[in-house]
């Protein structure tokens, strides 16, 4: 098409050590190591296989919410109803078993379906009424879902779940010393990471988060992607509900309060911009362990929960401030800007 010699573009990725080590994730790794050192001073038993595994189990059930929450934030959305979805799906699971007398296996399936439905409703409202902010819609459903859970159980608890050994084992059981829950989590984490970074769906998430209008004009089915992602978030909130119920052996309508903020904190600390379009999956995974182990360590020395909140809040503020300081600007390679002749 051009008379002059064709301009050739570089299409090979180049690897640079400098760029590699300037990644945000290394900073997270440093914090992660620091927290582990701190914990090992607190408890002499911490740095053992069983110590680390029990520490991990203390927070891992919440981490299932973080996986789809990464998608939500990359899309530039937010979902603060997840804690209530955990409660509602857990309550319905407990009551399906206790009141309706359904087998536990079926109750779990119902739980997962309820979770997915809650997420679907969030997504459906958002794509039908585009002028509504996700924060407000999911605030509404947060109250709504919690309200339904409370209506079902009042101030009662649905107990007796410990009597089913296999259900109890979901949380407490292990194989070769590795908890089942950890295995399930690793499998899902790998799948979610793969979807985000290696598939079309992941690319669409980034596209929507970066520029929704351009994505729409480019044929990305924005509504479909949002609906799927919100449904997925509801579904994985229900997964959290299953493990939580397995751990506690009973469910009440006031469980999982504040889970949404913890999940969002983990995602944001992982370097995923709440404005959308930016961040890596691995960052969020490291952050799950940072916040989880930090809580665990502070819990060991009986730090009051209020102080714990102050520590975690400060860490989060610090984490979102550091990229603003623009420390990287001294290292950044100049971009190839080509001016027109």
């Amino acid at each position, binding site marked *: 098409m051009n008379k002059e010699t064709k301009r050739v*573009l570089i*299409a090979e990725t180049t690897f640079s050590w400098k760029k590699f080590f300037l990644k945000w994730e290394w900073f997270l790794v440093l914090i992660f190591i620091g927290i582990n050192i701190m914990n090992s001073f607190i408890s002499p038993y911490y740095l053992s296989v069983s110590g680390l595994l029990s520490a991990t189990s203390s927070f891992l059930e919440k981490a299932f919410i973080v996986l789809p929450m990464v998608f939500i934030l990359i899309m530039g959305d937010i979902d603060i109803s997840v804690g209530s979805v955990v409660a509602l799906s857990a309550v319905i699971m407990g009551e399906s078993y206790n009141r309706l007398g359904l087998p536990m296996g079926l109750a779990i399936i119902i739980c997962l379906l309820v979770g997915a439905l809650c997420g679907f409703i969030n997504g459906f409202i958002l794509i039908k009424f585009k002028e509504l902010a996700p924060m407000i819609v999911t605030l509404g459903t947060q109250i709504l879902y919690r309200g339904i859970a409370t209506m079902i159980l009042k101030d009662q608890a649905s107990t007796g779940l410990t009597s089913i050994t296999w259900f109890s084992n979901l949380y407490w059981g292990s194989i070769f010393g590795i908890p089942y829950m950890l295995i399930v989590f690793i499998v899902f984490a790998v799948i979610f990471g793969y979807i985000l970074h*290696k598939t079309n769906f992941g690319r669409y998430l980034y*596209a929507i988060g970066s*520029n929704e209008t*351009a*994505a729409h*004009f480019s*044929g990305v089915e924005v509504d479909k992607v949002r609906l799927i992602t919100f449904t997925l978030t509801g579904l994985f909130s229900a997964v959290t509900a299953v493990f939580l119920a397995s751990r506690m052996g009973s469910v009440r309508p006031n469980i999982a309060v504040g889970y949404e903020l913890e999940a969002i904190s983990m995602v944001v600390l992982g370097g995923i911009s709440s404005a959308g379009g930016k961040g890596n999956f691995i960052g969020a995974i490291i952050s799950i362990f940072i916040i989880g182990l930090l809580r665990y360590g502070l819990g060991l020395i009986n730090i009051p929960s209020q102080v714990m909140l102050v520590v975690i809040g400060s860490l989060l503020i610090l984490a979102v401030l550091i990229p603003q300081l623009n420390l990287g600007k001294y290292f950044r390679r100049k971009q190839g800007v080509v001016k027109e002749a």
Partner: protein
Amino acid sequence: MSEYILELKGVTKIFPGVKALDRVQFQLKAGEIHALIGENGAGKSTLIKVITGVHKPDEGEIFINGERVNFRGPKDAQKAGIAAIYQHVTAYPHLTVTENIFMGHEIVRNKVVQWKEMHKEASELLAKLDADFSATDEMQSLSVAQQQLVEIAKALSMKAKIIIMDEPTAALSKNESERLYEVTEKLRDDGASIIFISHRFDDIFRLASRATVLRDSKYIDQFDIEGVTEKELITAMVGREITEMFPKIDVEIGEDVLRVEGLSRTGFFKDVSFNVREGEILGLTGLVGSRRTEVVEAIYGITKLDKGHVYLNGKEIHVKGPRHAMELGIGLLPEDRQQQGLILDWGLGRNVTLPVMKDISKKGITDEAKERSLSKNLLETVGVKALSIFDKASSLSGGNQQKVVVAKQLASKLKVIILDEPTKGVDVGAKAAIYEIIGELAKQGYAIILISSEMPEILGLCDRVVVMCEGRVTGEFDRREVSQEKILEKAMAKRTIG
């Protein structure tokens, strides 16, 4: 005392890469209504912004009553008695009429806002303008015409001597326009001097005593309206030579590819029909507000049609959305390439392949090697000036960004390519390159719809031209019979409704 209340001499304004005003002169007599006319992009808006102190001229002088002034900002211009009423009313919809009128210059005594006094004065101003609403009404409850009266009242409340009206009739019905004419004449009789910008000859001949014509950022001529004809004004507005920028390639024109019949969308366009054939470049033109973009966005599935039929290769289609349009073979290069066309934060390669992710993946898993080679290939085809396919789209110039958007279209298997203002904000060299690409696409058999406000583009590139005015098709010309004058006459067609 000078003869002119406002005079501009040799005003030049340069934006990065563009001369928006080139040694323009302008004279406004006290107590006259002076029309400022020219095509889209002729420099009218920039001139207004210089007069109102929004832009500082790079060269030239401004005189008010013969005294040289130097506006440091809009406040200075306001103090000098200049007020502007814009095409799109910039009001506070939730506040009352009084609050809107006095926004920014409230009557304050002892640090307390004097509401009573302001209401009284606002009511007096409205009475003077024969307004049929009250000063306590909420702004958003008013019609566009009424809101304009509020803006005029605001100008009067600031004791403006020079009032600029930027296409005030663009959104008004015939009766409303008539009311506005009366108000404008009243203002003049009360001693204000008025600059009236309009695309409508109705307005110009009804109101103005003199007219200044701008074209290509330059002052062209000044006319006394009495004794001048529409033709003379049009000639002054368009009289430009088409350079050799448009190497029209002869292409065998084939069968109908896209045909639309009776497209309507309430409030936007009505009964729009046209067709485009294989290898043909169809120009779709009109002035601002002609709703060309709205029509093609509906065809592409961004918005929904209320009525009408779309046929592709003779078969009726119902486009559900952009994805569906592309699968059928219709592509659109949107008007706003930075907001709609590209993800500026992304590399060029990823931008190009976003619409065709399905083709470069297996079971939803992206084949990155295939992606890189495809995007490299297409970006090289359109001749993007960049170093690598990983360069961010934001690092490119406007022309090169547009080439990336073109490359994006080429990735899909399209039959029809719609280009909405592809050379907007692009410099001359890159324009020529884009024209060349468009010609090449036609040669490859694409049916092309080119939306453009630039006459030379339409005349130089298109095989056929469809002219729109206020949401309707008002004319269609073949390449052999088309001229700038004919297009402009149809584009400014007298209103049939209202």
